[in-house]
């Protein structure tokens, strides 16, 4: 069974139809790269998966469970949506760390808030808080920032901030981790450290969707590549297929426009 199945997602903003029926499936442990020119709907697609936008039509299934069905009004209530979001994690282009918290608390906050809803939280408070802290510390070292645990976001470089954001997204162990152009807001010399961290997650068999403009990265890391144009999937296949031998005229045009830079 695919870990993620997306069927016929449509989304309009006013008269602007941004997604015009997008569907794909992913297996557990796969890395999917979504490429395409700006305005092709890549980011909107990720935002729909994370329920930051509500699709006008379509369905989203995780492990065969219907998480979202535009036809079914009953699954739209905010409380349900909140739980469903936890199947997904999202790393933003602009990091969006919480400025008033240090690195440790940025990573641990969501875990703490969820733990407070556990029935045994009051009786095992110390133990649970200890577990959360050690998990947060482990994640922070995993992204190579063990020496920055007590720093505040403004004291970090963009690359370091994005690595904290990755640790924060991993904290709730999402089944599918999404990256929305994770290096687009970074100086060129800082993109490498972030891509290295994302690459390291691949070996730990996380399922990931990466919207990116880093073609080299997509080619080397992704198991599957989707090229989007005008709100539709123009071409999809393995990285070798899409990069090595693109079938669609538009995909070829996109690649040649990139090489002209």
């Amino acid at each position: 069974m695919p870990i993620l199945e997306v069927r016929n997602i449509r989304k309009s903003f006013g008269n602007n139809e941004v997604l015009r029926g997008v569907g794909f499936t992913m297996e557990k442990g796969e890395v999917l790269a979504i490429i395409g020119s700006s305005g092709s709907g890549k980011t909107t697609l990720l935002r729909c998966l994370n329920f930051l936008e509500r699709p006008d039509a379509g369905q989203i299934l995780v492990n065969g469970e219907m998480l979202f069905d535009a036809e079914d009004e009953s699954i739209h209530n905010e409380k349900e949506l909140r739980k469903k979001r936890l199947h997904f994690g999202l790393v933003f282009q602009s990091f969006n760390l919480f400025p008033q918290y240090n690195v440790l608390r940025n990573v641990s906050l969501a875990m703490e808030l969820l733990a407070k809803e556990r029935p045994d939280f009051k009786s095992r408070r110390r133990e649970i808080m200890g577990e959360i802290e050690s998990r947060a510390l482990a994640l922070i070292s995993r992204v190579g920032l063990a020496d920055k645990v007590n720093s505040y976001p403004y004291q970090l470089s963009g690359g370091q901030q994005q690595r904290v954001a990755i640790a924060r997204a991993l904290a709730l162990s999402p089944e599918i981790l999404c990256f929305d152009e994770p290096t687009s807001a970074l100086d060129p010399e800082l993109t490498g450290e972030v891509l290295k961290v994302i690459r390291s997650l691949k070996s730990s068999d996380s399922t990931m969707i990466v919207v990116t403009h880093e073609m080299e990265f997509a080619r080397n890391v992704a198991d599957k590549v989707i090229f989007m144009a005008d709100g539709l999937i123009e071409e999809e296949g393995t990285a070798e297929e899409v990069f090595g031998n693109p079938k669609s005229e538009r995909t070829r045009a996109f690649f040649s426009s990139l090489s002209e830079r």
Partner: protein
Amino acid sequence: MSFQTVTKVLLQGFAENCVIFAVTLLFAIPLGLIIAFGSMSRFWPLKWLTRTFVWVIRGTPLMLQLFVVMYVPGLLFDVTMPNRVLGIPIDPRMFSALVAFIINYAAYFSEIYRGGIESIAVGQYEAGQVLGMTGPQIFFKVVLLQVVKRIIPPMGNEIITLVKDTSLARVIAVQEILWIAEEFTTVGLIWPLFYTGVFFLAFCGVLTLLFGFIERKLDYFRG
């Protein structure tokens, strides 16, 4: 009349100013937040009702509002202001002054809050959402402290204005410091009138230090 006597009498008047100041802050700070939420509501009748209210309050003089609260309930509805609140005896004129000040300052505060809340990047809310936080958790754990940091300077401004505005209560015969000082002119003393400035200056000096302290306390993060 000696300097000490005048000081003592003026201090009694200034106590009235301090009561108006403290009670206004106590009620206007939370009331302003409720009005701010109203003016940001997605339910448009509530939004336009609160925005009209804020427009009226900010668009008319506080002095006029004092007169309205003092006289209109009695003239139109035959309602008299209470002389006791929760068992505490209170001059009905003081009660009217407090009502007018609270409403007036809550309207101004609400606009400062609204500006602060709306200045927080959407990404902060979205980051909270994708981490499974509820709306209230996002407001209290993510947004609030950032808003507080941003509104400290304009709130400081408004609160320092309030110190001086308290003397407006004299127009409905609350015997605050300027009223008292003016009484001295009837016995030929003009200097107490100017001396009142020292009280306001001292009070505002303390507030300036306090706000500087809070700003430094919140200096540990940026954003």
